[in-house]
């Protein structure tokens, strides 16, 4: 293949040649190639399953955070109506952090969905090529002399090999991204484990470190805005419209 430059082309070429190296006689090439192709298809299926698992995990994380956001909002209101502004501010800071994480998680879930779709398409395409190869190899066996069959088979195998290598690259990229997302999700889980998104009333003293980190993480102006909005709401409605939400919060 003349004129192929670039790192990806090099990677793909290397993969193809590794695939073809083992071929010595046409019969062996055929069987070896076909067997490799089927193995590769299995790997693609595994890759897709991994993406689905990662997606489910992020979705669960996202649901948990959604609950935390609702809970912290309710707690902020409760704290404020009880006159504890400091506690309300802390709750809103945490809610802010949880919301930011939630947005990022939802975006990641969308990305994973797109990857899953793309890999599924690739799998179908590869399946089509492998099927074509299977048909062609029977024709080659029957119609061509050994020497000619050798040439045609390696051409066809190169074509399938390129498709496989390309799917392989796509899976590698998907795996890299999924790994980054997993690290991020783990970090959120750690925050959760540290009690960051937990019921504020269960927190004792000595939470200074978490509070300091949260204050750094959350944009304080946003928190202040929300706090004054909440104050206004509570001041105007004096409990009327909010009592339902408060009760819900206490019930959960």
């Amino acid at each position: 293949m003349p004129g192929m430059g670039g790192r990806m082309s090099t990677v793909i070429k290397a993969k193809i040649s590794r695939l073809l190296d083992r071929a010595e006689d046409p019969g062996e090439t055929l069987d070896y190639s076909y067997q490799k192709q089927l193995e590769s298809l299995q790997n693609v299926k595994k890759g897709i399953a991994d993406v689905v698992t990662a997606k489910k995990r992020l979705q669960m994380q996202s649901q948990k955070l959604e609950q935390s956001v609702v809970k912290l909002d309710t707690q902020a209101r409760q704290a404020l109506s009880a006159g504890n502004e400091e506690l309300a501010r802390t709750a809103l800071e945490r809610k802010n952090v949880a919301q930011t994480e939630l947005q990022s998680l939802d975006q990641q879930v969308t990305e994973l969905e797109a990857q899953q779709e793309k890999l599924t398409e690739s799998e179908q395409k590869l399946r089509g090529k492998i099927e074509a190869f299977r048909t062609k190899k029977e024709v080659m066996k029957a119609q061509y002399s050994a020497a000619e069959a050798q040439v045609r088979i390696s051409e066809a195998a190169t074509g399938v090999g390129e498709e496989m290598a390309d799917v392989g690259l796509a899976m590698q990229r998907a795996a890299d991204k999924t790994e980054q997302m997993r690290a991020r999700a783990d970090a959120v889980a750690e925050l959760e484990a540290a009690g960051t998104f937990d019921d504020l009333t269960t927190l004792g003293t000595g939470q200074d470190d978490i509070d300091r980190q949260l204050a750094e993480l959350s944009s304080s102006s946003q928190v202040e805005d929300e706090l004054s909005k909440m104050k206004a709401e509570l001041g105007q409605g004096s409990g009327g419209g909010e009592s339902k939400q408060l009760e819900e919060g206490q019930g959960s």
Partner: protein
Amino acid sequence: MIVRISNEGQYRIDDALHGRLNDLDDAAVAAVEADDEDAFHEVFEELLDLVRKEGHELADDDLEASDVILPPADLTFVEAGEEFTGDGLIPEPAESAG
């Protein structure tokens, strides 16, 4: 000429388009060298669109190898630095047929 867009598929391109593809390829290299990320993405998108629009997608039972392999559309600028160097990915068109 057969061009593959990574993670998308293969397209058969009329040889008459080789010049235009090569110009965009060179522009992508220039953008990478100038460290101009926006310009790179613009040129790269244009390059991919030209292939998608003017090329004919190969059927699934077509087992031909590609002459050129372009990176996937979600290529990052950092990755672009490893792809678009020197003469780029599209070979310079030959002076005469051959």
